[in-house]
């Protein structure tokens, strides 16, 4: 039809509005396709890796070696493997954990190079190799045994290589893993023997009970409580949320934007529509014509967005595999997501476009040719504001806002969304900052922590005794695992405070805030707990809640801990110390250094800054598009008014103030709304992410970053105003003179 020739021409006349909408669709589809395809690929490959390479269900340490592995395997229908490891001090600041190659559980996968074939060969994790400039074919001397690096590898239980399974942040500069053949680990001299188990039936409780009867179970860690294994699952959930929720929010924003633009376009063309009706065009033909605007934007936006998103899958996967110790992933372009990404804008925009067009086309040809039905009533908001008390400029600006509610809502929603995106980066960093500072700087005052591989007793020369064990309790109708930590009553190396920052002494039972929040536990509540290691059961009453987010931990006096668990008086499993202690490595299960954690966090800061920069740039683009489009709509709707202001003698500055600055309050309002919204969204996002992890991330947003974000949003607003100034200047005064207005 000939009238469709004008679609392209109209779009070019108002190109900023249409290009802005298309860019938003591109961003939405790009995020949707890239994140979903990449996350599905990571999840599929991870699942495949875990299945093929036999990820453990749990690992444990017992005081005495288990002699009858085969017997236990048969009895409980389990796969059980003895494992040995040795922590090698690669240099003064880094530890390389040498693992014995396994055959049944947690089998390694080669990422680069080849598998172990001979004695004297070693495979290392690529993060550690990169951080220490180690390459395939290099030689590595460990405890006087020379090894040749034959490749890079990963194991399913070290996908996120943490020194301790309760750590949070990895640091390849300080810790890495390597795998050697069984014979070689004996050459190096192992300092830890532990077991990995995989259950075929839900009989872990019976197995643990049996182990405890014949041996002393020192440590039992389910894969869910092992951050090395479970951390990636939390991140995957985060990635899936980003891949689903964010593009949908962008498309909702685009829908509002396009509906406002189309409504404006149709109103402007009432006369033409009326004339077309009068000429004999049907409603369907006219509707088809206006549908083309949405269809063209959707086709261009979704095709480009999906295409760019597909190109981003590979770099995104490289980023994930680089961060996690994962085997090389096979890129499988799941057509489901390509199709969904392409169709998503249509699914959102077609109904919205239909509603907008059909509402407008309800008018009769005569009404349309008269420019539509004029509203004669002042809306409720405008009435209730009692504008007479304000100065002219204020009245004009307020009227502009309340008269065009869809445009006002678009402005608020757009600014809120862009601000939320901007604050997301800052809030993530602030929350991590807070977690690290509160946990590793404020709470834990020790520098070194030594965990023994057997129960210790006696008096210490330096440091503080500690004991901890994993417990289970029925919380919220589910058996949940958590840690109870026995602490010396006079402890100076753990500093817990309550909500009002009052110091909490260790002569009482204290739970962390994260545990209290997760399970709804309050001061005075009692819980029945069962020790996972020795099945001892007792009831404890919660005295205080501490402001701590490291995990689900209950602190109690060490003497009470020993008594309730049936351990000897003054016995302990752990020593925390300010100074480095000289403890033989064969007595230790683990040794950790608080500085490693802080260094790990500092190492994460740079990529985090890039992430914040990336998010801020996206927020800036989205904010700029929305504010620019809304302002340009405002100018178009006010062309006659601007013209009149100019004729009356208003200076350019005065016209800018009346027209361009009328949205200032909306931008500020949008930003204010975004602060509580992002805090609530991020809290829910972190809860989803850490649901199955052994940490809680407290949501924080520092005032300085709120201020920085506000300045960025205001700069975006000022920029969009500056870009629109030309439009105001180009409004001709002569246009107004002959214009017929109602």
């Amino acid at each position, binding site marked *: 039809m000939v009238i469709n020739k004008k679609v392209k021409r109209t779009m070019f006349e108002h190109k900023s509005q249409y290009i802005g909408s298309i860019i938003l669709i591109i961003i939405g589809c790009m995020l949707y396709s890239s994140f979903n395809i990449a996350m599905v690929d990571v999840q599929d490959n991870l699942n495949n890796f875990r299945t093929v390479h036999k990820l453990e269900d749990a690992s444990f340490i017992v005081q005495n070696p288990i002699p009858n592995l085969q017997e236990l395997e048969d009895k409980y229908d389990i796969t059980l493997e003895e494992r040995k490891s040795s922590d090698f001090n690669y240099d003064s600041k880094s530890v390389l954990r040498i693992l014995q190659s396994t055959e049944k559980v947690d089998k390694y996968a080669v990422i680069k190079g080849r598998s172990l074939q001979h004695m004297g060969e070693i495979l290392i994790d690529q993060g550690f190799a990169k951080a220490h400039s180690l390459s395939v074919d290099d030689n590595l001397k460990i405890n006087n045994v020379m090894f040749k690096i034959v490749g890079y590898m990963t194991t399913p239980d070290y996908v996120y290589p943490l020194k301790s399974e309760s750590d949070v942040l990895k640091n390849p500069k300080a810790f890495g893993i390597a795998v050697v053949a069984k014979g070689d680990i004996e050459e190096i001299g192992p300092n830890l023997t532990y077991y990995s188990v995989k259950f075929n039936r839900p009989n872990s409780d019976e197995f643990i009970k049996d182990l405890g009867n014949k041996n002393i179970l020192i440590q039992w860690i389910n894969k869910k409580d092992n951050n090395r294994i479970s951390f990636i699952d939390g991140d995957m959930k985060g990635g899936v949320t980003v891949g689903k929720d964010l593009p949908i929010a962008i498309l909702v924003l685009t829908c509002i934007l396009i509906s406002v633009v189309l409504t404006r376009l149709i109103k402007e063309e009432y006369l033409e529509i009326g004339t077309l009706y009068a000429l004999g065009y049907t409603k369907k033909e006219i509707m088809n014509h206006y549908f083309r605007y949405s269809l063209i934007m959707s086709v261009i936006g979704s095709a480009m967005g999906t295409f760019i998103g597909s190109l981003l899958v590979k770099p995104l996967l490289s980023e994930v595999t680089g961060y996690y110790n994962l085997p090389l992933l096979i890129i499988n372009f799941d057509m489901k997501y390509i199709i969904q990404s392409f169709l998503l804008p249509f699914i959102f925009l077609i109904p919205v476009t239909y509603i907008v067009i059909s509402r407008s086309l309800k008018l009769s040809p005569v009404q349309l040719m008269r420019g539509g039905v004029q509203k004669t009533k002042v809306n409720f908001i405008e009435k209730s504001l009692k504008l007479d008390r304000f100065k002219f400029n204020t009245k*004009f600006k307020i009227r502009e806002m309340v008269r065009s509610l869809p445009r006002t809502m678009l402005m608020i929603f757009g600014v809120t969304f862009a601000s939320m995106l901007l604050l997301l980066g800052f809030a993530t960093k602030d929350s991590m900052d807070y977690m690290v500072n509160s946990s590793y700087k404020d709470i834990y005052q020790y520098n070194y922590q030594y965990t023994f591989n057997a129960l210790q007793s006696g008096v210490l020369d330096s440091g503080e005794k500690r004991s901890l064990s994993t417990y289970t309790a029925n919380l919220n109708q589910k058996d949940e695992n958590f840690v109870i930590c026995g602490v010396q009553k006079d402890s100076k190396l753990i500093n817990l405070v309550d909500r009002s920052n009052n110091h909490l002494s260790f002569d009482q039972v204290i739970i962390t805030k994260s545990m209290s929040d997760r399970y709804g536990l309050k001061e005075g509540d009692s819980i029945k707990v069962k020790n996972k290691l020795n099945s001892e059961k007792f009831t404890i009453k919660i005295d205080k809640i501490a402001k701590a987010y490291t995990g689900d931990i209950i602190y109690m006096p060490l003497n009470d801990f020993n008594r309730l668990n049936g351990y000897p008086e003054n016995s302990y499993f752990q020593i925390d110390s300010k100074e480095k202690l000289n403890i033989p490595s064969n007595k230790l299960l683990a040794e950790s250094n608080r500085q490693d954690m802080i260094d790990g966090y500092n190492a994460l800061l740079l990529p985090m800054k890039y992430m914040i920069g990336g998010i801020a740039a996206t927020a800036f683009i989205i904010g700029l598009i929305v504010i620019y489009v809304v302002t340009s709509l405002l100018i178009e709707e006010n062309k006659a008014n601007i013209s009149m202001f*100019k*004729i*009356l003698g208003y200076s350019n500055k005065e016209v800018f103030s009346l027209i361009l600055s009328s949205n200032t309050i909306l931008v500020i309002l949008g930003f204010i709304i975004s602060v509580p919204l992002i805090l609530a969204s991020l809290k829910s996002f972190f809860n989803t992410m850490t649901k199955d992890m052994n940490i809680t991330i407290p949501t924080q947003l520092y005032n300085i970053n709120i201020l920085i974000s506000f300045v960025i949003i205001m700069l975006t607003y000022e920029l969009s105003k500056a870009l629109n100034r030309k439009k105001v200047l180009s409004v001709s*005064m*002569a246009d107004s*003179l*002959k214009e*017929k*207005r109602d």
Partner: protein
Amino acid sequence: MLMEIKNMDKSFVIGKESFKALQNVSLGIDRGEIGVILGPSGSGKSTLLNIIGGIERADRGSVVIDDVDLTQINDFKLTQFRRNSIGFIFQFYNLIPNLTVYENVEVAANISKDALDIDEVLHSVDMSEFKHRFPRELSGGQQQRVSIARAIVKKPKFLLCDEPTGALDYHTSKEILKLITVINKKFVTTVLIITHNTAISAIANRIIKLRSGEVIENSINDNVLPAERVVW
């Protein structure tokens, strides 16, 4: 003399063609006069009014109003000139739809250093009782009264009226013409009306006729009639 135009030309480029809207126009109006510019469509009336009002610029010649040559001043000074010296009345009133009657007058008062009292002005155009209404709630004649109030509230020296009765019925048109003459007397405002209705020239002291962009007649009307007696 309040306004003196000498040898003024104005052309427009439409597509690739140049079109002469005004050619060698010379005319003048004395302070306190009512002038009427008559001419058919396309004669250049509106272009002439726009140039006098400082909305468009002449290509050649001089346009001196109240001792200021509009062809020689920059955009800022031209804006100040419009702000301080000119009042406009339009055929289709050009009121701002989302402002009340009072606020539409306030639009002009807002930028004037020495504006008249808005209520008094509304009273003088008989619109006091409608001051809280919006333009769409008014008849055409009432809207034109508001337009006049808006034009005179800043005490302009020159009131430029572009087909002020063009959209109105006979009786309302006569009322508006009466109002314009009253304002001319009361505020000693010089008035220039462009129209194609020759009957309106009866209320004018000076009659200027345009055809194809040229002044074909510039005469003094010795038989000025009150608006009530004008018929067409």
